[in-house]
Protein backbone atom coordinates (compact mmCIF):
# COMPACT_ATOMS: atom_id res chain seq x y z
CA UNK A 1 0.00 0.00 0.00
CA UNK A 2 1.40 3.41 -0.89
CA UNK A 3 2.02 6.19 1.64
CA UNK A 4 -0.58 8.36 0.00
CA UNK A 5 -3.40 5.91 0.49
CA UNK A 6 -2.43 5.46 4.14
CA UNK A 7 -2.82 9.18 4.84
CA UNK A 8 -6.15 9.26 3.10
CA UNK A 9 -7.23 6.31 5.20
CA UNK A 10 -6.11 8.21 8.32
CA UNK A 11 -8.16 11.16 7.29
CA UNK A 12 -11.08 8.87 6.65
CA UNK A 13 -10.98 7.41 10.16
CA UNK A 14 -10.59 10.91 11.54
CA UNK A 15 -13.70 12.07 9.71
CA UNK A 16 -15.56 8.95 10.80
CA UNK A 17 -14.59 9.53 14.43
CA UNK A 18 -15.81 13.10 14.29
CA UNK A 19 -19.07 12.14 12.64
CA UNK A 20 -19.59 9.48 15.32
CA UNK A 21 -19.10 12.13 18.01
CA UNK A 22 -21.58 14.45 16.34
CA UNK A 23 -23.90 11.50 15.97
CA UNK A 24 -23.67 10.64 19.66
CA UNK A 25 -24.38 14.19 20.83
CA UNK A 26 -27.38 14.32 18.49
CA UNK A 27 -28.63 11.04 19.88
CA UNK A 28 -28.26 12.22 23.46
CA UNK A 29 -30.23 15.36 22.66
CA UNK A 30 -32.91 13.34 20.93
CA UNK A 31 -33.15 10.95 23.85
CA UNK A 32 -33.51 13.78 26.35
CA UNK A 33 -36.45 15.01 24.29
CA UNK A 34 -38.06 11.68 23.64
CA UNK A 35 -37.37 9.80 26.86
CA UNK A 36 -36.22 11.95 29.77
CA UNK A 37 -38.67 14.85 29.38
CA UNK A 38 -41.78 12.67 28.85
CA UNK A 39 -40.82 10.51 31.86
CA UNK A 40 -40.36 13.59 34.04
CA UNK A 41 -43.69 14.86 32.73
CA UNK A 42 -45.42 11.63 33.72
CA UNK A 43 -43.93 11.77 37.22
CA UNK A 44 -45.01 15.40 37.63
CA UNK A 45 -48.55 14.53 36.51
CA UNK A 46 -48.61 11.61 38.92
CA UNK A 47 -47.41 13.87 41.76
CA UNK A 48 -50.11 16.43 40.97
CA UNK A 49 -52.79 13.74 40.83
CA UNK A 50 -51.59 12.29 44.16
CA UNK A 51 -51.64 15.75 45.75
CA UNK A 52 -55.15 16.31 44.41
CA UNK A 53 -56.40 12.93 45.69
CA UNK A 54 -54.38 13.36 48.91
CA UNK A 55 -55.06 9.82 50.08
CA UNK A 56 -52.01 7.50 50.00
CA UNK A 57 -54.30 4.48 50.13
CA UNK A 58 -55.85 5.47 46.79
CA UNK A 59 -52.88 7.03 45.06
CA UNK A 60 -49.49 7.30 46.78
CA UNK A 61 -47.04 9.96 45.60
CA UNK A 62 -44.23 8.94 43.23
CA UNK A 63 -41.63 9.49 45.95
CA UNK A 64 -43.47 7.24 48.41
CA UNK A 65 -43.74 4.58 45.71
CA UNK A 66 -40.07 4.73 44.75
CA UNK A 67 -39.10 4.55 48.42
CA UNK A 68 -41.30 1.48 48.71
CA UNK A 69 -39.51 -0.05 45.70
CA UNK A 70 -36.16 0.59 47.38
CA UNK A 71 -37.37 -0.99 50.63
CA UNK A 72 -38.74 -4.03 48.82
CA UNK A 73 -35.51 -4.50 46.95
CA UNK A 74 -33.34 -4.30 50.07
CA UNK A 75 -35.33 -5.95 52.87
CA UNK A 76 -36.58 -9.57 52.90
CA UNK A 77 -40.36 -10.16 53.15
CA UNK A 78 -42.22 -12.73 55.26
CA UNK A 79 -40.82 -15.52 53.08
CA UNK A 80 -37.31 -14.17 53.48
CA UNK A 81 -37.22 -13.00 49.85
CA UNK A 82 -36.47 -9.49 48.59
CA UNK A 83 -38.07 -8.01 45.48
CA UNK A 84 -34.86 -8.85 43.64
CA UNK A 85 -35.31 -12.52 44.50
CA UNK A 86 -38.84 -12.43 43.14
CA UNK A 87 -37.53 -10.65 40.09
CA UNK A 88 -35.06 -13.48 39.59
CA UNK A 89 -37.85 -16.09 39.72
CA UNK A 90 -39.97 -14.22 37.19
CA UNK A 91 -36.92 -13.45 35.04
CA UNK A 92 -35.75 -17.07 34.86
CA UNK A 93 -39.27 -18.25 34.00
CA UNK A 94 -39.58 -15.65 31.27
CA UNK A 95 -36.20 -16.61 29.77
CA UNK A 96 -36.94 -20.35 29.86
CA UNK A 97 -40.39 -19.88 28.33
CA UNK A 98 -39.24 -17.44 25.66
CA UNK A 99 -36.42 -19.75 24.55
CA UNK A 100 -38.77 -22.74 24.32
CA UNK A 101 -41.41 -20.67 22.49
CA UNK A 102 -38.81 -19.28 20.10
CA UNK A 103 -37.49 -22.77 19.29
CA UNK A 104 -40.96 -24.11 18.53
CA UNK A 105 -41.84 -20.96 16.59
CA UNK A 106 -38.66 -21.21 14.51
CA UNK A 107 -39.29 -24.84 13.57
CA UNK A 108 -42.91 -24.19 12.61
CA UNK A 109 -42.17 -20.82 11.03
CA UNK A 110 -39.53 -22.34 8.73
CA UNK A 111 -41.73 -25.35 7.98
CA UNK A 112 -44.49 -22.95 7.00
CA UNK A 113 -42.25 -21.03 4.60
CA UNK A 114 -40.83 -24.14 2.98
CA UNK A 115 -43.94 -26.33 2.86
CA UNK A 116 -47.17 -25.15 1.25
CA UNK A 117 -49.45 -27.65 3.04
CA UNK A 118 -48.02 -26.72 6.41
CA UNK A 119 -48.51 -23.07 5.58
CA UNK A 120 -52.12 -23.52 4.59
CA UNK A 121 -53.01 -25.78 7.50
CA UNK A 122 -51.38 -23.72 10.22
CA UNK A 123 -52.27 -20.28 8.89
CA UNK A 124 -55.95 -21.22 9.10
CA UNK A 125 -55.82 -23.00 12.44
CA UNK A 126 -53.46 -20.68 14.36
CA UNK A 127 -55.90 -17.73 14.40
CA UNK A 128 -58.29 -19.95 16.29
CA UNK A 129 -55.58 -20.86 18.79
CA UNK A 130 -55.06 -17.13 19.23
CA UNK A 131 -58.66 -16.55 20.29
CA UNK A 132 -58.21 -18.80 23.34
CA UNK A 133 -57.96 -16.37 26.27
CA UNK A 134 -54.65 -16.52 28.11
CA UNK A 135 -56.38 -16.69 31.47
CA UNK A 136 -58.30 -19.82 30.43
CA UNK A 137 -55.08 -21.51 29.32
CA UNK A 138 -53.50 -20.59 32.65
CA UNK A 139 -56.38 -21.87 34.79
CA UNK A 140 -56.54 -25.17 32.88
CA UNK A 141 -52.81 -25.68 33.04
CA UNK A 142 -52.84 -24.95 36.79
CA UNK A 143 -55.37 -27.75 37.26
CA UNK A 144 -53.61 -30.16 34.90
CA UNK A 145 -50.12 -29.63 36.35
CA UNK A 146 -51.07 -29.22 39.97
CA UNK A 147 -50.43 -25.50 40.57
CA UNK A 148 -46.64 -25.47 40.30
CA UNK A 149 -43.66 -24.28 38.35
CA UNK A 150 -44.46 -26.61 35.45
CA UNK A 151 -47.99 -25.23 35.18
CA UNK A 152 -46.63 -21.69 34.78
CA UNK A 153 -44.11 -22.74 32.14
CA UNK A 154 -46.61 -24.87 30.20
CA UNK A 155 -49.34 -22.22 30.19
CA UNK A 156 -47.00 -19.46 29.07
CA UNK A 157 -45.48 -21.55 26.29
CA UNK A 158 -48.94 -22.52 25.01
CA UNK A 159 -50.20 -18.94 25.14
CA UNK A 160 -47.17 -17.32 23.50
CA UNK A 161 -46.16 -19.83 20.82
CA UNK A 162 -48.95 -19.28 18.24
CA UNK A 163 -48.13 -15.56 18.18
CA UNK A 164 -44.43 -16.42 17.87
CA UNK A 165 -45.06 -18.77 14.94
CA UNK A 166 -47.04 -16.17 13.01
CA UNK A 167 -44.36 -13.57 13.67
CA UNK A 168 -41.54 -15.90 12.51
CA UNK A 169 -43.50 -16.94 9.44
CA UNK A 170 -44.19 -13.35 8.38
CA UNK A 171 -40.50 -12.49 8.80
CA UNK A 172 -39.19 -15.52 6.96
CA UNK A 173 -41.56 -14.87 4.04
CA UNK A 174 -39.52 -11.77 3.15
CA UNK A 175 -36.29 -13.65 2.42
CA UNK A 176 -34.91 -12.38 -0.83
CA UNK A 177 -35.34 -15.10 -3.43
CA UNK A 178 -33.32 -13.10 -5.96
CA UNK A 179 -30.22 -13.34 -3.82
CA UNK A 180 -30.52 -17.11 -3.71
CA UNK A 181 -30.88 -17.22 -7.50
CA UNK A 182 -27.86 -14.93 -7.77
CA UNK A 183 -25.81 -17.21 -5.53
CA UNK A 184 -26.76 -20.25 -7.58
CA UNK A 185 -25.83 -18.46 -10.78
CA UNK A 186 -22.30 -18.12 -9.37
CA UNK A 187 -22.31 -21.85 -8.59
CA UNK A 188 -22.15 -21.17 -4.86
CA UNK A 189 -22.23 -24.34 -2.78
CA UNK A 190 -25.19 -25.09 -0.54
CA UNK A 191 -22.97 -24.44 2.47
CA UNK A 192 -22.09 -21.02 1.10
CA UNK A 193 -25.72 -20.19 0.38
CA UNK A 194 -26.62 -21.06 3.96
CA UNK A 195 -23.68 -19.23 5.47
CA UNK A 196 -23.92 -16.07 3.43
CA UNK A 197 -27.62 -15.80 2.65
CA UNK A 198 -30.00 -17.89 4.74
CA UNK A 199 -28.36 -17.40 8.11
CA UNK A 200 -27.61 -13.67 7.83
CA UNK A 201 -31.16 -13.21 6.60
CA UNK A 202 -32.84 -15.35 9.20
CA UNK A 203 -30.87 -14.02 12.17
CA UNK A 204 -32.47 -10.58 12.31
CA UNK A 205 -35.91 -12.15 12.16
CA UNK A 206 -34.91 -14.62 14.84
CA UNK A 207 -33.69 -11.77 16.98
CA UNK A 208 -36.74 -9.64 16.23
CA UNK A 209 -39.07 -12.54 16.99
CA UNK A 210 -37.24 -13.19 20.24
CA UNK A 211 -37.72 -9.59 21.32
CA UNK A 212 -41.37 -9.79 20.41
CA UNK A 213 -41.90 -13.11 22.21
CA UNK A 214 -40.07 -11.97 25.35
CA UNK A 215 -42.12 -8.75 25.34
CA UNK A 216 -45.35 -10.70 25.70
CA UNK A 217 -43.98 -13.56 27.80
CA UNK A 218 -43.22 -11.19 30.70
CA UNK A 219 -46.84 -10.33 31.09
CA UNK A 220 -48.17 -13.87 30.64
CA UNK A 221 -45.74 -15.16 33.26
CA UNK A 222 -47.01 -12.49 35.64
CA UNK A 223 -50.61 -13.49 35.00
CA UNK A 224 -49.79 -17.19 35.51
CA UNK A 225 -47.94 -16.42 38.75
CA UNK A 226 -51.05 -14.71 40.04
CA UNK A 227 -52.83 -18.07 40.10
CA UNK A 228 -51.38 -20.54 42.55
CA UNK A 229 -47.65 -20.07 42.88
CA UNK A 230 -45.80 -18.53 45.79
CA UNK A 231 -42.96 -16.52 44.33
CA UNK A 232 -42.35 -14.17 41.45
CA UNK A 233 -43.86 -10.76 40.71
CA UNK A 234 -47.32 -12.08 39.88
CA UNK A 235 -47.63 -13.84 43.23
CA UNK A 236 -46.58 -10.63 44.97
CA UNK A 237 -49.11 -8.54 43.04
CA UNK A 238 -51.86 -10.90 44.12
CA UNK A 239 -50.66 -11.08 47.73
CA UNK A 240 -50.54 -7.32 48.21
CA UNK A 241 -53.78 -6.88 46.29
CA UNK A 242 -55.51 -9.15 48.77
CA UNK A 243 -53.85 -7.28 51.64
CA UNK A 244 -55.16 -4.04 50.15
CA UNK A 245 -51.60 -2.59 50.00
CA UNK A 246 -51.70 -0.41 46.91
CA UNK A 247 -48.36 1.28 47.69
CA UNK A 248 -46.51 -2.03 47.84
CA UNK A 249 -48.18 -3.20 44.63
CA UNK A 250 -47.17 -0.04 42.84
CA UNK A 251 -43.67 -0.39 44.31
CA UNK A 252 -43.41 -3.79 42.63
CA UNK A 253 -44.97 -2.46 39.44
CA UNK A 254 -42.36 0.30 39.13
CA UNK A 255 -39.53 -2.20 39.48
CA UNK A 256 -41.15 -4.48 36.92
CA UNK A 257 -41.71 -1.70 34.37
CA UNK A 258 -38.17 -0.40 34.83
CA UNK A 259 -36.58 -3.83 34.37
CA UNK A 260 -38.68 -4.73 31.31
CA UNK A 261 -38.12 -1.37 29.60
CA UNK A 262 -34.38 -1.44 30.31
CA UNK A 263 -34.00 -4.96 28.91
CA UNK A 264 -36.17 -4.13 25.92
CA UNK A 265 -34.87 -0.69 24.94
CA UNK A 266 -31.46 -0.36 26.58
CA UNK A 267 -30.14 -3.89 25.98
CA UNK A 268 -31.94 -5.86 23.28
CA UNK A 269 -32.83 -3.08 20.87
CA UNK A 270 -29.35 -1.46 20.75
CA UNK A 271 -27.83 -4.95 20.50
CA UNK A 272 -30.11 -5.72 17.58
CA UNK A 273 -29.21 -2.45 15.89
CA UNK A 274 -25.52 -3.15 16.39
CA UNK A 275 -25.60 -6.77 15.20
CA UNK A 276 -27.67 -5.99 12.14
CA UNK A 277 -26.31 -2.58 11.22
CA UNK A 278 -25.89 -3.79 7.61
CA UNK A 279 -29.62 -3.44 7.27
CA UNK A 280 -29.13 0.33 7.37
Amino acid sequence: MSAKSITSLDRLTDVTARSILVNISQRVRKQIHQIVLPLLGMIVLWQLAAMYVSDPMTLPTPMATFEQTYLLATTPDFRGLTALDHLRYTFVRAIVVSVIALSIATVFGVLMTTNKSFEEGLSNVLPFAMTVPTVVIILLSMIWFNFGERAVIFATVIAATPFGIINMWQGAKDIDVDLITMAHSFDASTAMVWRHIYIPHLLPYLFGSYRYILGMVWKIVILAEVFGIENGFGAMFRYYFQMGELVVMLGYLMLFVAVVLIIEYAVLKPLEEYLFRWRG
Partner: protein
Amino acid sequence: MSTYDLAGGSPRQRIVTAIFNPTILTLIGFLVIWEIAAMSFSPRDLPGLVQLAELTFTVVSGGDRYYFPEHAWITFQRIGIAFVITMVIGVTVGIAMGYGVIERYMTTPVMVVLTFPSVVWAFIAVMWFGLTTYLVMVFVIVVIVAPYVIVNVWKGAESIDHDLLEMADAFDASTAMKWRHIYIPFLMPFLFSSGRLAIALSWKLSLVAEIFGASSGIGYVINIYYEAVRADMIIAWSVPIMLLMFGIERVLKRVENNYFEWRPELDDVTSEVQSG
Protein backbone atom coordinates in the same frame (compact mmCIF):
# COMPACT_ATOMS: atom_id res chain seq x y z
CA MET B 1 -67.09 -29.04 -18.00
CA SER B 2 -64.67 -26.24 -18.77
CA THR B 3 -60.97 -26.96 -18.98
CA TYR B 4 -60.26 -24.25 -16.40
CA ASP B 5 -62.14 -26.00 -13.65
CA LEU B 6 -59.20 -27.13 -11.51
CA ALA B 7 -61.38 -28.46 -8.70
CA GLY B 8 -63.16 -30.61 -11.23
CA GLY B 9 -63.28 -34.38 -11.52
CA SER B 10 -65.81 -36.90 -10.33
CA PRO B 11 -67.75 -36.21 -7.11
CA ARG B 12 -65.65 -38.82 -5.34
CA GLN B 13 -62.42 -37.13 -6.34
CA ARG B 14 -63.81 -33.85 -5.10
CA ILE B 15 -64.62 -35.29 -1.71
CA VAL B 16 -61.12 -36.75 -1.50
CA THR B 17 -59.47 -33.39 -2.29
CA ALA B 18 -61.73 -31.69 0.24
CA ILE B 19 -60.69 -34.09 3.00
CA PHE B 20 -57.01 -33.85 2.18
CA ASN B 21 -57.20 -30.11 2.41
CA PRO B 22 -54.40 -29.11 4.83
CA THR B 23 -56.68 -27.02 7.03
CA ILE B 24 -59.10 -29.87 7.57
CA LEU B 25 -56.25 -32.30 8.15
CA THR B 26 -54.69 -30.03 10.79
CA LEU B 27 -58.08 -29.69 12.46
CA ILE B 28 -58.72 -33.43 12.41
CA GLY B 29 -55.21 -34.04 13.76
CA PHE B 30 -55.88 -31.66 16.63
CA LEU B 31 -59.20 -33.31 17.51
CA VAL B 32 -57.66 -36.80 17.39
CA ILE B 33 -54.85 -35.73 19.75
CA TRP B 34 -57.47 -34.20 22.06
CA GLU B 35 -59.51 -37.41 22.10
CA ILE B 36 -56.46 -39.60 22.78
CA ALA B 37 -55.28 -37.28 25.56
CA ALA B 38 -58.78 -37.29 27.06
CA MET B 39 -58.64 -41.09 27.42
CA SER B 40 -55.77 -40.88 29.86
CA PHE B 41 -57.26 -38.06 31.94
CA SER B 42 -60.21 -37.99 34.29
CA PRO B 43 -63.23 -36.50 32.46
CA ARG B 44 -63.28 -33.68 35.03
CA ASP B 45 -59.80 -32.63 33.93
CA LEU B 46 -60.08 -33.22 30.20
CA PRO B 47 -63.42 -34.36 28.82
CA GLY B 48 -63.61 -36.33 25.59
CA LEU B 49 -65.08 -34.57 22.53
CA VAL B 50 -68.56 -36.07 22.90
CA GLN B 51 -68.73 -35.34 26.61
CA LEU B 52 -67.48 -31.82 25.99
CA ALA B 53 -70.14 -31.25 23.34
CA GLU B 54 -72.85 -32.43 25.72
CA LEU B 55 -71.48 -30.31 28.54
CA THR B 56 -71.28 -27.25 26.34
CA PHE B 57 -74.82 -27.79 25.17
CA THR B 58 -76.07 -28.03 28.76
CA VAL B 59 -74.25 -24.81 29.63
CA VAL B 60 -75.47 -22.83 26.62
CA SER B 61 -79.07 -23.97 26.99
CA GLY B 62 -79.05 -22.68 30.55
CA GLY B 63 -79.07 -26.11 32.22
CA ASP B 64 -76.01 -25.48 34.37
CA ARG B 65 -76.04 -24.38 38.02
CA TYR B 66 -75.12 -20.89 36.77
CA TYR B 67 -77.44 -19.50 34.12
CA PHE B 68 -75.25 -19.00 31.03
CA PRO B 69 -77.45 -16.59 29.03
CA GLU B 70 -77.52 -14.14 31.92
CA HIS B 71 -73.77 -14.20 32.57
CA ALA B 72 -72.93 -14.09 28.87
CA TRP B 73 -75.25 -11.10 28.39
CA ILE B 74 -73.63 -9.07 31.17
CA THR B 75 -70.15 -9.88 29.79
CA PHE B 76 -71.29 -8.70 26.35
CA GLN B 77 -72.64 -5.46 27.76
CA ARG B 78 -69.30 -4.77 29.44
CA ILE B 79 -67.37 -5.49 26.25
CA GLY B 80 -69.79 -3.37 24.22
CA ILE B 81 -69.60 -0.31 26.46
CA ALA B 82 -65.81 -0.59 26.71
CA PHE B 83 -65.53 -0.98 22.94
CA VAL B 84 -67.44 2.22 22.23
CA ILE B 85 -65.46 4.25 24.77
CA THR B 86 -62.14 2.79 23.56
CA MET B 87 -62.84 3.62 19.93
CA VAL B 88 -63.99 7.16 20.69
CA ILE B 89 -60.91 7.91 22.77
CA GLY B 90 -58.56 6.05 20.42
CA VAL B 91 -59.79 7.75 17.27
CA THR B 92 -59.90 11.28 18.70
CA VAL B 93 -56.50 11.12 20.37
CA GLY B 94 -54.97 9.20 17.45
CA ILE B 95 -56.08 11.79 14.89
CA ALA B 96 -55.02 14.65 17.17
CA MET B 97 -51.59 13.06 17.47
CA GLY B 98 -51.30 12.49 13.74
CA TYR B 99 -51.70 16.18 13.06
CA GLY B 100 -49.89 17.55 16.06
CA VAL B 101 -46.38 17.86 17.37
CA ILE B 102 -47.01 16.06 20.68
CA GLU B 103 -46.20 12.82 18.90
CA ARG B 104 -42.51 12.69 19.85
CA TYR B 105 -43.37 13.27 23.49
CA MET B 106 -46.04 10.56 23.51
CA THR B 107 -44.00 7.52 22.45
CA THR B 108 -42.33 6.92 25.81
CA PRO B 109 -45.48 7.30 27.95
CA VAL B 110 -47.36 4.93 25.66
CA MET B 111 -44.51 2.41 25.92
CA VAL B 112 -44.50 2.65 29.72
CA VAL B 113 -48.26 2.21 30.01
CA LEU B 114 -48.23 -0.77 27.64
CA THR B 115 -45.71 -2.52 29.92
CA PHE B 116 -48.22 -2.75 32.80
CA PRO B 117 -49.56 -6.33 33.05
CA SER B 118 -53.34 -6.44 32.57
CA VAL B 119 -53.89 -8.15 35.91
CA VAL B 120 -52.22 -5.24 37.73
CA TRP B 121 -54.71 -2.87 36.10
CA ALA B 122 -57.49 -5.17 37.27
CA PHE B 123 -56.10 -5.10 40.85
CA ILE B 124 -55.74 -1.32 40.82
CA ALA B 125 -59.28 -0.94 39.47
CA VAL B 126 -60.75 -3.18 42.16
CA MET B 127 -58.84 -1.29 44.87
CA TRP B 128 -60.21 1.98 43.53
CA PHE B 129 -63.77 1.03 42.67
CA GLY B 130 -64.50 -2.17 44.60
CA LEU B 131 -66.71 -4.88 43.08
CA THR B 132 -68.85 -3.27 40.39
CA THR B 133 -71.20 -4.32 37.64
CA TYR B 134 -69.51 -2.35 34.88
CA LEU B 135 -66.86 0.07 36.05
CA VAL B 136 -63.90 -2.25 36.78
CA MET B 137 -64.23 -4.22 33.55
CA VAL B 138 -64.80 -1.18 31.38
CA PHE B 139 -61.91 0.67 33.01
CA VAL B 140 -59.46 -2.23 32.53
CA ILE B 141 -60.40 -2.71 28.88
CA VAL B 142 -60.29 0.98 28.00
CA VAL B 143 -56.99 1.60 29.77
CA ILE B 144 -55.28 -1.35 28.08
CA VAL B 145 -56.80 -1.29 24.59
CA ALA B 146 -57.02 2.46 23.96
CA PRO B 147 -53.21 2.89 23.61
CA TYR B 148 -53.15 0.25 20.85
CA VAL B 149 -56.00 1.96 19.02
CA ILE B 150 -54.37 5.37 19.48
CA VAL B 151 -51.07 4.17 18.04
CA ASN B 152 -52.81 2.45 15.14
CA VAL B 153 -54.99 5.44 14.20
CA TRP B 154 -52.06 7.79 14.71
CA LYS B 155 -49.97 5.80 12.21
CA GLY B 156 -52.83 6.13 9.77
CA ALA B 157 -53.29 9.86 10.27
CA GLU B 158 -49.57 10.38 9.90
CA SER B 159 -49.36 8.59 6.59
CA ILE B 160 -52.04 10.71 4.87
CA ASP B 161 -50.97 11.35 1.30
CA HIS B 162 -50.26 15.06 0.97
CA ASP B 163 -50.02 14.79 -2.80
CA LEU B 164 -53.70 13.89 -2.88
CA LEU B 165 -54.60 16.88 -0.73
CA GLU B 166 -52.65 19.05 -3.15
CA MET B 167 -54.54 17.49 -6.03
CA ALA B 168 -57.82 18.29 -4.24
CA ASP B 169 -56.66 21.90 -3.88
CA ALA B 170 -55.84 22.08 -7.58
CA PHE B 171 -59.44 21.08 -8.33
CA ASP B 172 -60.76 23.52 -5.67
CA ALA B 173 -62.31 20.74 -3.56
CA SER B 174 -64.04 21.93 -0.40
CA THR B 175 -62.92 20.86 3.09
CA ALA B 176 -66.00 18.66 3.38
CA MET B 177 -65.07 16.90 0.15
CA LYS B 178 -61.50 16.41 1.34
CA TRP B 179 -62.75 14.70 4.51
CA ARG B 180 -65.25 12.59 2.69
CA HIS B 181 -63.07 11.45 -0.20
CA ILE B 182 -59.53 11.60 1.20
CA TYR B 183 -59.21 11.69 4.99
CA ILE B 184 -61.96 9.23 5.89
CA PRO B 185 -61.25 6.61 3.20
CA PHE B 186 -57.60 6.86 4.11
CA LEU B 187 -58.25 6.30 7.81
CA MET B 188 -60.92 3.65 7.27
CA PRO B 189 -58.62 0.60 7.05
CA PHE B 190 -56.84 1.72 10.22
CA LEU B 191 -60.15 2.21 12.03
CA PHE B 192 -61.34 -1.16 10.91
CA SER B 193 -58.24 -3.04 11.97
CA SER B 194 -58.24 -1.13 15.27
CA GLY B 195 -61.82 -2.22 15.84
CA ARG B 196 -61.01 -5.85 15.18
CA LEU B 197 -58.03 -5.65 17.51
CA ALA B 198 -60.16 -4.00 20.20
CA ILE B 199 -62.78 -6.75 20.04
CA ALA B 200 -60.19 -9.54 20.07
CA LEU B 201 -58.43 -8.07 23.10
CA SER B 202 -61.35 -6.78 25.10
CA TRP B 203 -63.20 -10.03 25.67
CA LYS B 204 -60.03 -11.70 26.94
CA LEU B 205 -59.40 -8.76 29.24
CA SER B 206 -62.96 -8.74 30.51
CA LEU B 207 -62.46 -12.34 31.71
CA VAL B 208 -59.41 -11.31 33.76
CA ALA B 209 -61.22 -8.30 35.19
CA GLU B 210 -64.36 -10.33 35.98
CA ILE B 211 -62.34 -12.87 37.94
CA PHE B 212 -61.29 -10.22 40.45
CA GLY B 213 -63.74 -7.38 40.10
CA ALA B 214 -67.29 -8.67 39.56
CA SER B 215 -69.89 -11.03 40.93
CA SER B 216 -71.34 -11.90 37.54
CA GLY B 217 -70.15 -12.62 34.00
CA ILE B 218 -68.34 -15.48 32.31
CA GLY B 219 -65.01 -14.71 34.02
CA TYR B 220 -66.68 -14.78 37.43
CA VAL B 221 -68.19 -18.23 36.77
CA ILE B 222 -64.96 -19.58 35.31
CA ASN B 223 -63.12 -18.55 38.46
CA ILE B 224 -65.67 -20.36 40.62
CA TYR B 225 -65.06 -23.53 38.63
CA TYR B 226 -61.32 -22.96 38.91
CA GLU B 227 -61.62 -22.88 42.67
CA ALA B 228 -63.69 -26.07 42.48
CA VAL B 229 -60.93 -27.58 40.29
CA ARG B 230 -63.34 -28.37 37.44
CA ALA B 231 -61.35 -28.02 34.21
CA ASP B 232 -64.21 -29.54 32.20
CA MET B 233 -66.59 -26.75 33.25
CA ILE B 234 -63.98 -24.05 32.53
CA ILE B 235 -63.68 -25.41 28.98
CA ALA B 236 -67.44 -25.78 28.54
CA TRP B 237 -68.00 -22.17 29.64
CA SER B 238 -65.29 -20.69 27.43
CA VAL B 239 -65.87 -22.69 24.22
CA PRO B 240 -69.17 -20.98 23.24
CA ILE B 241 -67.81 -17.46 23.44
CA MET B 242 -64.55 -18.48 21.82
CA LEU B 243 -66.45 -19.85 18.85
CA LEU B 244 -68.60 -16.73 18.72
CA MET B 245 -65.62 -14.38 18.93
CA PHE B 246 -63.78 -16.36 16.29
CA GLY B 247 -66.87 -16.19 14.07
CA ILE B 248 -67.18 -12.41 14.56
CA GLU B 249 -63.51 -12.01 13.76
CA ARG B 250 -63.84 -14.00 10.52
CA VAL B 251 -66.95 -12.09 9.46
CA LEU B 252 -65.28 -8.74 10.12
CA LYS B 253 -62.28 -9.90 8.14
CA ARG B 254 -64.55 -10.85 5.24
CA VAL B 255 -66.38 -7.52 5.40
CA GLU B 256 -63.07 -5.73 5.55
CA ASN B 257 -61.76 -7.52 2.49
CA ASN B 258 -64.91 -6.63 0.55
CA TYR B 259 -65.01 -3.08 1.80
CA PHE B 260 -61.40 -2.46 0.88
CA GLU B 261 -61.74 -4.05 -2.52
CA TRP B 262 -59.49 -1.36 -3.94
CA ARG B 263 -56.63 -2.41 -1.71
CA PRO B 264 -54.41 -5.33 -2.71
CA GLU B 265 -53.34 -6.39 0.80
CA LEU B 266 -53.72 -5.26 4.37
CA ASP B 267 -51.48 -5.91 7.37
CA ASP B 268 -53.14 -7.97 10.03
CA VAL B 269 -52.59 -6.23 13.35
CA THR B 270 -54.79 -8.55 15.41
CA SER B 271 -52.26 -11.31 15.07
CA GLU B 272 -49.63 -9.22 16.80
CA VAL B 273 -50.95 -8.44 20.24
CA GLN B 274 -51.23 -10.89 23.10
CA SER B 275 -53.49 -9.89 25.94
CA GLY B 276 -51.31 -10.97 28.92
